[in-house]
C-alpha cells in the first residue's frame, strides 16, 4: 500500500524537478510513468486482496479506497494527457506538477481513516486545483477570476470542515473513524455530534458541488482553462465522494437516522436545481457545470441509500461520469472559432455538419451524461436508483427520473444545435486534435459506450469493492 503512495509522491517530486531541467516532453513522460507505476502498484495490491490499516491507523486500504484510487489514476492519466496536449503551445510548466500534487491528495483522500488525514488530503487535492484554475495563457483574466472564486469558497468550505471536525472531536474524543464510530454507538453529547456532522457535510458538499453550495461550480468551470475544468470535474467528484462515503458510512454509520433525511433533501435539491438552471445556459462549459451539479445530486442518492449496493452504484457512477465529463471537456477544447476556443452555444450551430465524427463522439458523450441506455451513464443511474429503491425511496427515484428527463433536454439541445442546424459562416469548427487529446477522447468514448453495453466487469469490480473496512 505504501508503495502506491511512495510512487505517487515520488512521481510528484520528480516532476517538480522536471519543469526546469527537462523540457515539456520529458516532464510529461515522467508524469505518465509515475502515474502508471502507481497504477501498477495499486493493481498489485488489489490483486493480493488484503485490506489493511496502515500508517498508525490513519490510512486504510480497502475496496472503495482501491477502487477510487484506481479510477482516480486512470482519470489522472487522461487528464494529464489532455492538459499536456492543450492547443499548440505547451501549458505553463507548473501545470503538470500541480496536477500531480492534486492527484497525490486525491489518492490519499479515499483512504483516509481519520479526520486529520482526510482534511490534509482534501487540502492537498484542492490547493493545486485552485492554482491550476488560474494558470491560463489565454483569457487569463477570466481564469484568475475563476481561480479566485474557487479559492475563496473552497477556503470557506475548508473552514467549515475543520470546525466540524473540531466538534466531532469534542464529541468523540478522537479523530479516527473507528473511534468516532464507537462514540456514535455509545451516543452521548448528541448536539455536538449533530453540529459536527452538519458542518463536515457542508464542507464536503461544497467540494462536491451540491446545492445549496454549488454556486462556485459554473463560474469555475467556465472560467478555468478547459483542460483543467475537465480534471476538476472528474477528479474533485471522485475525491470528495470517496471522503463522503467513508465519513458517513464508516464514522457516522450509527447515526444514519440523523443524516439520511437531510442528505436526501440535499440530493433532491441538487438534482432539481442543477437540471433546471442548466436548461437556461448559453455556454457549453457553464451548462456542463450545472450538469455536474445535477450529477452530484444523483451520486448523493447512492450515498443516501446507505447500502452496499448504493456504494457500488456510486463508485460505478463516479468512474463513468469522470470519464464522460473529461471526454466532453476534451472535445470542448477542440472547438474553435476565429477568436480561439469558443464555448458559446450559439456558435456551435452546425458543427455536426462540418465534422461529423468529432461531433458524433461528443453526442455520444452527452448522451452518456444524460443517461441514455446503452451508455455507462445509464447503468450508473440504474445502479444508484435500484439501490435507493431497495431502500424504499420510491418518491425520490421519481423525482430523480424526472430530473433526468429534464437533463436530457439540455444535452439534447446541444445535439440539436450541432446536427440539426445549418452551420453559420462565422461559426466554430472542430480543429484536428493532437494525438494525446485524441487518445483522451477515444478512451472516454469507449468507456462511455463500453460501460453501457457491457457493464458487467466494472460493475462487478465496484460491487466487490463496495465494502468498507471498519
Amino acid at each position: 500500500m505504501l508503495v502506491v503512495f511512495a510512487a505517487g509522491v515520488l512521481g510528484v517530486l520528480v516532476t517538480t524537478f522536471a519543469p526546469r531541467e527537462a523540457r515539456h516532453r520529458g516532464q510529461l513522460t515522467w508524469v505518465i510513468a509515475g502515474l502508471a507505476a502507481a497504477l501498477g502498484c495499486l493493481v498489485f495490491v488489489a490483486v493480493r486482496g488484503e485490506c489493511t490499516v496502515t500508517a498508525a491507523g490513519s490510512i486504510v486500504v480497502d475496496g472503495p479506497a482501491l477502487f477510487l484510487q484506481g479510477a482516480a489514476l486512470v482519470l489522472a492519466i487522461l487528464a494529464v494527457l489532455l492538459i499536456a496536449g492543450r492547443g499548440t503551445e505547451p501549458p505553463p510548466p507548473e501545470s503538470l506538477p500541480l496536477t500531480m500534487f492534486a492527484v497525490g491528495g486525491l489518492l490519499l483522500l479515499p483512504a483516509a481513516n481519520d479526520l486529520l488525514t482526510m482534511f490534509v488530503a482534501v487540502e492537498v487535492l484542492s490547493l493545486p486545483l485552485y492554482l491550476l484554475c488560474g494558470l491560463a495563457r489565454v483569457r487569463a483574466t477570466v481564469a484568475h477570476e475563476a481561480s479566485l472564486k474557487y479559492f475563496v469558497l473552497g477556503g470557506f468550505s475548508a473552514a467549515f470542515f475543520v470546525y466540524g471536525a473540531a466538534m466531532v472531536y469534542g464529541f468523540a474524543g478522537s479523530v479516527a473513524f473507528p473511534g468516532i464510530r464507537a462514540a456514535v454507538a455509545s451516543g452521548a453529547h448528541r448536539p455536538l455530534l449533530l453540529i459536527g456532522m452538519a458542518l463536515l457535510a457542508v464542507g464536503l458538499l461544497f467540494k462536491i458541488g451540491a446545492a445549496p453550495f454549488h454556486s462556485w461550480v459554473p463560474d469555475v468551470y467556465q472560467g478555468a482553462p478547459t483542460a483543467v475544468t475537465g480534471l476538476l470535474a472528474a477528479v474533485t467528484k471522485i475525491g470528495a465522494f470517496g471522503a463522503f462515503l467513508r465519513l458517513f458510512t464508516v464514522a457516522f454509520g450509527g447515526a444514519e437516522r440523523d443524516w439520511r433525511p437531510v442528505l436526501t433533501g440535499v440530493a433532491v435539491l441538487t438534482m432539481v436545481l442543477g437540471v433546471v438552471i442548466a436548461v437556461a445556459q448559453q455556454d457549453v462549459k457553464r451548462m456542463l457545470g450545472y450538469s455536474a451539479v445535477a450529477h452530484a445530486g444523483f451520486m448523493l442518492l447512492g450515498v443516501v441509500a446507505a447500502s452496499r449496493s448504493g456504494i457500488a452504484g456510486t463508485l460505478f457512477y463516479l468512474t463513468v461520469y469522470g470519464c464522460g465529463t473529461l471526454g466532453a471537456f476534451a472535445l470542448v477544447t477542440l472547438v474553435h472559432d476565429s477568436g480561439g476556443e469558443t464555448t458559446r452555444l450559439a456558435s456551435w450551430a452546425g458543427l455536426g455538419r462540418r465534422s461529423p465524427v468529432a461531433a458524433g463522439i461528443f453526442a455520444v458523450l452527452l448522451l452518456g451524461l444524460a443517461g441514455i441506455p446503452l451508455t455507462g451513464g445509464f447503468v450508473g443511474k440504474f445502479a444508484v436508483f435500484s439501490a435507493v429503491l431497495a431502500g424504499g425511496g420510491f418518491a425520490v427515484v421519481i423525482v430523480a427520473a424526472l430530473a433526468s428527463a429534464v437533463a436530457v433536454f439540455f444535452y439534447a439541445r446541444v445535439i440539436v444545435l450541432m446536427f440539426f442546424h445549418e452551420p453559420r459562416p462565422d461559426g466554430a469548427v472542430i480543429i484536428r486534435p493532437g494525438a494525446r487529446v485524441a487518445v483522451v477522447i477515444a478512451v472516454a468514448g469507449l468507456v462511455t459506450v463500453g460501460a453501457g453495453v457491457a457493464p458487467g466487469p466494472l460493475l462487478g469490480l465496484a460491487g466487490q469493492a463496495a465494502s468498507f473496512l471498519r
Partner: protein
Amino acid sequence: MNPANYLCLSAVLFGLGAAGVLLRRNVIVVLMCVELMLNAANLAFVVFSRMHGRLDGQVFAFFTMVVAAAEVVVGLAIVMAAFRDRRSSSIDDANLLKH
C-alpha cells in the same frame, strides 16, 4: 478554566469569520476571515483536547495551522494574479463570470 467559555468564544469567532466572508468585499479581508474561522476551529480543538486529556486535538490544530498557512500562500498568489489584471482586490469587481 471552564471549557464552555472557550467554546463560546470559538463559536463567536467562527461566526464572525463566516459573516466576514459573506459580507466583506475585499478579498484580502475575506481571506483573513477564513483564517479567523480556521483559528476558531483550532481553539475548539485545543479546548476539546484538554477536556479529553488527549493530544491528538492539538496535533490537529497544528496541522490546521499548516494548512492555513498553505492556504494563505495560495490565496495570496491568486489574489496577486487577479490584482495584476484589474488593479483591484474587491470581490464586487469580479463579475466577468456571470453569464
